[in-house]
């Protein structure tokens, strides 16, 4: 038995090692993952909470002891309305306004003295590095989403540092986390179905010779790929609509915006992601390589497109990278429609991006497509 096992094990190893493209990818993929993860999550301790601080300038940590709390990411936010939007949409857990240090104070200082540098322009800025100093100019004000569990905890942390901090009323409808997450779940399901569904089907057709047979007909690569895209699109839309109806009825969710616009967005996003999957499957014949490449796409999208958490406060390059992914545009636009009732005008950049990438990926896929591997 051992001999047979070793024979098969050895043959499989030879097969794997001689498939150079897969071998190379298998070696490169972990390195890329390590490098990517170290960039995104490495360095400082990962914060558990995200607090927006009204400030037109980079934050001065000495402005208040609360700003020294560990595991809290303090993000400068330029305007109160922007901050409140982020609180209600759970993009930040709490919004804080430190008197004479926030944007209002900064703006006032700028208007009065022509400066708003270093967290404020008044003379007392450098004096107070403790709670008393802050309180001496009035208690900090804060806004918190009472539906957010993390908001509840970070509020306790704030009150421990600044017991006199005053909670302000959050205007507008607070969004539940599940409402914020809902578009993410739909988007993630679409992403996997788009990328893996089409990628593996084309690969199977290539390996079993069906593509070779089609090649002998008048069918062009563009026609074949378009048919695959449209077939998968219908399936994805059907499943997504079913999921939407099912989940929305369970969590009692009602979209604030047009469902028709949401459908159009789903069509464009699906087209873009299916065509992206086709570019991967366009010319390879190795399951392992295609699986690896698809993983290379789906992992960053899952982590950086904002399915589970907001990228608020992430390094600029991470946000820039995220903005490349079609899923990011789908989620931003769908949240705008579903949670804020956004219309076409507000999401038109996302629609254009998704439409352009769909066409670009499809054209690239058709150009690089191989019916068979010689």
């Amino acid at each position: 038995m051992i001999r047979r096992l070793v024979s098969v094990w050895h043959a499989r190893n030879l097969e794997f090692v001689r498939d150079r493209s897969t071998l190379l990818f298998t070696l490169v993929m972990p390195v890329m993952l390590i490098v990517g993860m170290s960039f995104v999550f490495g360095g400082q301790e990962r914060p558990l909470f995200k607090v927006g601080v009204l400030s037109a300038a980079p934050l001065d940590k000495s402005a208040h002891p609360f700003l020294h709390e560990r595991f809290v990411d303090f993000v400068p936010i330029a305007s109160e309305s922007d901050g409140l939007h982020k609180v209600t949409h759970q993009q930040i857990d709490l919004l804080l306004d430190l008197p004479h240090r926030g944007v209002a104070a900064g703006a006032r200082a700028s208007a009065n003295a022509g400066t708003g540098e270093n967290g404020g322009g008044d003379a007392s800025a450098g004096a107070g590095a403790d709670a008393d100093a802050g309180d001496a100019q009035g208690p900090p004000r804060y806004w918190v989403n009472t539906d957010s569990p993390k908001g509840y905890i970070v509020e306790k942390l704030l009150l421990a540092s600044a017991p006199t901090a005053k909670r302000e009323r959050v205007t507008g409808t607070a969004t539940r986390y599940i409402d914020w997450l809902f578009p993410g779940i739909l988007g993630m399901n679409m992403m996997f179905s788009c990328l893996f569904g089409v990628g593996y089907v084309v690969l199977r057709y290539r390996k079993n010779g069906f593509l070779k047979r089609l090649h002998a007909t008048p069918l062009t690569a563009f026609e074949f790929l378009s048919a695959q895209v449209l077939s998968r699109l219908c399936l994805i839309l059907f499943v997504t609509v079913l999921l939407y109806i099912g989940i929305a009825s369970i969590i009692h969710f009602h979209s604030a915006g047009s469902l028709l616009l949401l459908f159009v967005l789903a069509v464009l996003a699906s087209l873009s992601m299916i065509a992206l999957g086709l570019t991967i499957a366009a010319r390879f014949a190795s399951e392992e390589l295609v699986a690896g490449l698809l993983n290379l796409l789906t992992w960053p999208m899952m982590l950086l497109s904002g399915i589970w958490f907001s990228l608020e406060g992430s390094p600029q390059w991470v946000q820039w990278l995220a903005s490349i992914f079609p899923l990011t545009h789908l989620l931003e636009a769908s949240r705008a429609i579903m949670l804020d009732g956004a219309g076409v005008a507000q999401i038109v950049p996302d629609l254009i991006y998704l439409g352009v990438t769909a066409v670009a990926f499809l054209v690239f896929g058709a150009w690089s497509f191989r019916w068979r591997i010689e």
Partner: protein
Amino acid sequence: MRRAENDRTFDRAPNLLASRRRFATGMDKKIMTGPILEVCNLVKQYGTVTAVSDVSFRVPEGMCFGLLGPNGAGKTTTIEIMEGILSATAGEVRYRGEPLGRQFREEAGILFQKTALQDFLTVRQCLTMFRGLYDRGLEVEELIKVCALEKLAGRDNRKLSGGQQQRLLLAIALVNDPALIFLDEPTTGLDPQARRNFWELIQSIKARRKTVILTTHYMEEAELLCDEIAIMDNGKIIAQGTPRELLNQHFADVLLELPRHEFPDSARHLPLTVIEASDSVEITTNDLDATLRTLMDARVPLQNLRIRPPNLEDLFLELTGKALRA
């Protein structure tokens, strides 16, 4: 058991002959004219290996042209270049005087050695799908009749026997009512009954004056179906002509066949033309009496001697020293 029964239905179908007759006579009656396909100085290299080396031939319209050779001779590579599936390193293939293009794809039908179809599709659905890829062609129901697929039309294509599968693939190759049909080893792996059924189908295609290009390992298949053959070895064409012409060119009248173990070593020095096959010894001669006398004088046992006319298999052995199915 069920497979064999289904294969036999091919012959028993009462309306099949009528269908085939309609198929064979009701269509275009093209007159054999110039070449429908020309292969000019074809070369195909894979790295340092030359699979096809400067191959040229012409296939007149309406002919069944056979490309024969052992495995590795280069015939599948040649035929795939002719089908437009593979690119040539050098040389070209011309269809009706033009490089292969849209017209060729519309007018050619191809049956590959191995083709997988889409999972879960029935026979009728497979045919409908392929029919949709062409501007013109035969009706799906007619194809089903011609290829005796009536009882299988609703069956999942993965649940067909080898013979049934080949009939479906032939129906797919005929879906565009092609002027030129490539059949790449169409009967390999079929049992004798299914193979004969398939030959009958090919003959009905020939009767429609379609041009057929056939590769095969089976010499009886080539002799039965092909008007002209080209024999390939080591990437080159080593003989070309009608089967009868080639046999007349290379062989005397008769061939004597003896079991190898009954042919003593001492007889190997006799003045005879001897070809040694795996389990037999073959002697070609144009003077049967003299050869028999020589063998008897050498005390070679003749109880199991067979005397037969030479066939294409013998021709191939004569030309290359290799068995065709090697």
